[in-house]
């Protein structure tokens, strides 16, 4: 390992090796790595909660008239009565599954965990720009989580107006039967917004201003690029949601009528504000996953990322387009059809950068030396599943087709191919990949591979048939589909989907077991188990407080694998001095 010559950096990081209290070290820590691990545990917990809600929902969809919910007795009468899931609880399940997954599981897992963990390490700095704000961004999530869980147990139950909170349904308790639950969720949303904004300020500032010497923009790993762009999206989109959410709270509590037509307000205004946030949010949920995938594919293929610059440009253009396409969620909402025209065109063009990325990922694998470990399998799985999710998006972008498939299960299939097959696959990959850095031990490979194949098979069994159910015309969020003439004959498919969903949920526990088992029993990892080039692998696992003995100096691009001039190994760390490692490389 090339250690950096002191004069090259001019500055050594002060090591605060003095004893910190347990509270300061593990609970109210300002160390970005500890905060990332806190986020990881938090989000894995809510991933399980969100999954549990989905299981209850799937049970109801598959067997709407059966009752007999297993363990139904443990739920209060207001949720499950004599084995039957009640419609009000079903609406809460639909709403909170979406809300919890988007806001408390996937988004903080992509950004809270990995932006926190990777930005300082991959950029070669000792911590975030504002460590205390960073700590606050985690602790703002805690009340959000508590309020969310508590909302299930208040009078009227948890929010039941869908995760999109369409007013007036979300604004008038008399129309849903949900009062306090809706307000609690909105307050939680404001906390989430605060957390996300504080986090984003940190990520952006750190990336702009605290890169290690030599870490030029075009030497940043694609993970950092994607997290940086994501932070910009969150920074500009989240405040709009906060503002809209606060107005919605006022509509419910102090008698305003921003979104209530009786008082002159406009329901469509809510949708515009929500989707102005919501579409960038969709990219917040996928861009980091794209970054992890690029990184893992490059390491696992032992090749540089194919078309690095094109990848960066594609990220930037997706982010830009992300702000001008929100109307495609509203094609059938009654907005001005002229707006529909503009939004169709801008939306379809998002397919272009997405295609560029997909082809470049394939280009990265092409003529590689593929190491098919669990992380790599999930990354490849991401590309395969994201492709399906991206392609099914073309149907919706084409407005006439959207007339039919809007608000059907086709949309449900699409969003899950992107958010589960996309984001969550990449997240599993990222956990398998960076776990050794976080905890110093490898996760068990055999369990990892079994987990991948179970997830892959069950995932497709759950969500691919939903395209068909959607084509038949099954509407989203219905408690019981059996009453409709056009939905006759889909019961068996729905039952198959539900059984597969149970399998998918169960395979999550294999992952959880592997996660905790490997903490103690996993193989010791060493600093760089994957022979990777980026900076985080050039410091011990787990890195000490402050990350580096001396700030690294960057000499190379982020993914220099299998360089022909490097003789003895197939990788060239970003901070390896060319004259020390390979004189030949210098003359290249």
């Amino acid at each position, binding site marked *: 390992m090339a250690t950096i010559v002191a004069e090259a950096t001019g500055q050594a990081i002060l090591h605060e090796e003095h004893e910190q209290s347990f509270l300061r070290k593990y609970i109210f820590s300002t160390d970005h790595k500890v905060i990332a691990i806190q986020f990881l545990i938090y989000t894995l917990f809510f991933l399980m909660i969100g999954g549990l809600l989905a299981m209850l929902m799937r049970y109801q969809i598959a067997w709407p008239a059966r009752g007999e919910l297993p363990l139904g007795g443990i739920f209060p009468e207001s949720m499950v009565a004599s084995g039957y899931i009640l419609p009000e609880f079903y609406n809460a399940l639909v709403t909170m599954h979406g809300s919890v997954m988007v806001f408390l599981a996937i988004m903080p897992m992509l950004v809270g965990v990995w932006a926190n963990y990777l930005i300082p390490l991959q950029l070669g700095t000792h911590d975030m720009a504002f460590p205390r704000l960073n700590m606050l961004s985690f602790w703002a999530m805690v009340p959000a989580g508590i309020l969310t869980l508590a909302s299930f147990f208040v009078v009227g139950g948890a929010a*039941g107006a869908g995760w999109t909170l*369409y007013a007036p*349904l979300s604004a008038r308790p008399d129309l849903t039967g949900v009062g306090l639950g809706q307000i609690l969720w909105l307050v939680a949303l404001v906390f989430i917004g605060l957390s996300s904004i504080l986090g984003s300020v940190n990520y952006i500032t750190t990336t702009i201003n605290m890169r290690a010497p030599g870490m030029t923009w075009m030497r940043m790993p694609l993970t950092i690029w994607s997290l940086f762009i994501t932070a910009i999206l969150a920074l500009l989109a989240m405040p709009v949601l906060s503002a809209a959410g606060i107005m919605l709270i006022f509509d419910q509590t102090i008698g305003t009528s921003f979104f209530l037509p009786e008082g002159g307000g406009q329901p469509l205004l809510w949708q515009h504000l929500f989707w102005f946030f919501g579409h960038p949010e969709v990219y917040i949920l996928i861009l980091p996953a794209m970054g992890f995938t690029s990184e893992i594919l490059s390491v696992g293929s032992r090749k540089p990322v194919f078309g*690095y610059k094109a990848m960066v440009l594609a990220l930037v253009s997706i982010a830009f387009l992300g702000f001008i396409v929100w109307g495609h969620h509203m094609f059938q909402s009654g907005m001005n059809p002229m707006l529909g025209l503009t939004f169709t065109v801008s939306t379809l063009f998002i397919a272009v950068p997405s295609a560029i990325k997909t082809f470049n990922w394939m280009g990265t694998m092409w003529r590689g030396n593929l190491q*098919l470990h669990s992380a790599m399998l999930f990354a490849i799985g991401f590309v395969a599943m994201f492709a399906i999710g991206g392609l099914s998006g073309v149907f919706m972008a084409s407005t*006439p087709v959207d007339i039919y498939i809007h608000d059907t299960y086709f949309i449900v299939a699409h969003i899950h191919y992107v958010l589960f097959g996309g984001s969550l696959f990449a997240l599993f990959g990222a956990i398998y990949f960076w776990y050794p850095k976080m905890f110093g031990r490898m996760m068990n490979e055999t369990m990892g591979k079994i987990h991948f194949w179970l997830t892959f098979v069950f995932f497709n069994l759950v969500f691919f048939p939903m395209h068909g159910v959607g084509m*038949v*015309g099954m509407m989203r969020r219905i408690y019981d589909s059996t*009453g409709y003439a056009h939905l006759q004959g889909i019961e068996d498919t729905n039952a198959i989907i539900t059984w597969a969903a149970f399998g998918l949920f169960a395979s999550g526990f294999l992952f959880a077991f592997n996660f905790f088992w490997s903490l103690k029993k996993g193989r010791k990892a060493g600093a760089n188990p994957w022979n990777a080039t980026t900076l985080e692998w050039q410091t011990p696992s787990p890195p000490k407080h402050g990350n580096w003995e001396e700030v690294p100096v960057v000499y190379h691009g982020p993914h220099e694998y*299998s360089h022909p001039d490097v003789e003895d190994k197939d990788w060239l760390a970003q901070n390896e001095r060319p004259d020390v490692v390979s004189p030949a490389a210098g003359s290249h």
Partner: protein
Amino acid sequence: MDWALPPNYSTFGVVIDQLFWIILVITGIAFLLVEGGILWFCLKYRGREGAKAHYTHGSNRLEIIWTVIPAIIIAVLGAYSALVWDDIKGSSNRPADALEFLVVGKQFEWNITYPGVDETLGTADDFTVRNQFHFPVNEDITILLESEDVIHSFFIPELRVKQDAVPGMTIPVWFDATQTGNFEIACAELCGLGHYYMMASVTVHSAADFDAWQASQAPAAAQ
């Protein structure tokens, strides 16, 4: 379950279905290309001891190819979609002499107001029927969609019609059924506890049958 769109009974449905299948073919080809490629690469370039990957940072020519080709396909698709969309929803294409109905959604029913024999809304012979939508075949139909409380969505799968009903707005929707038959209006937007049973029957009559039905309803409603 058939993996198919339900049979189509409207004029707009023809183009919508056509577009659906066109996109399915295009995306199907892309799907095979990508998934096949991934599978092939996984098998062909599986890691072997001592093997070294091909060192490349990419190819500008390839980047241009796979930017331009999708962009062209997308542009054509976008232009065609926009034309069809304008045809179906553009306010300038609203049929002038259509038979008009008022449809008001509320938790959890559809109230349809019929124009009566004089074929105009807002006159004395109008009458309202709950959860029953009757109209004649092969005639331009325009419904004025409203909502009393929350957002609902007016969805008739077989006619390929879907439009949100937004409180405070009156949204015109037009279509033309090509065959007689019995269908259902479903609510496609979560509207509360009874969302799942917010359905109404749709009956497409021949012109003569519709007149007869309307005549049979009108006296009852007039009282």
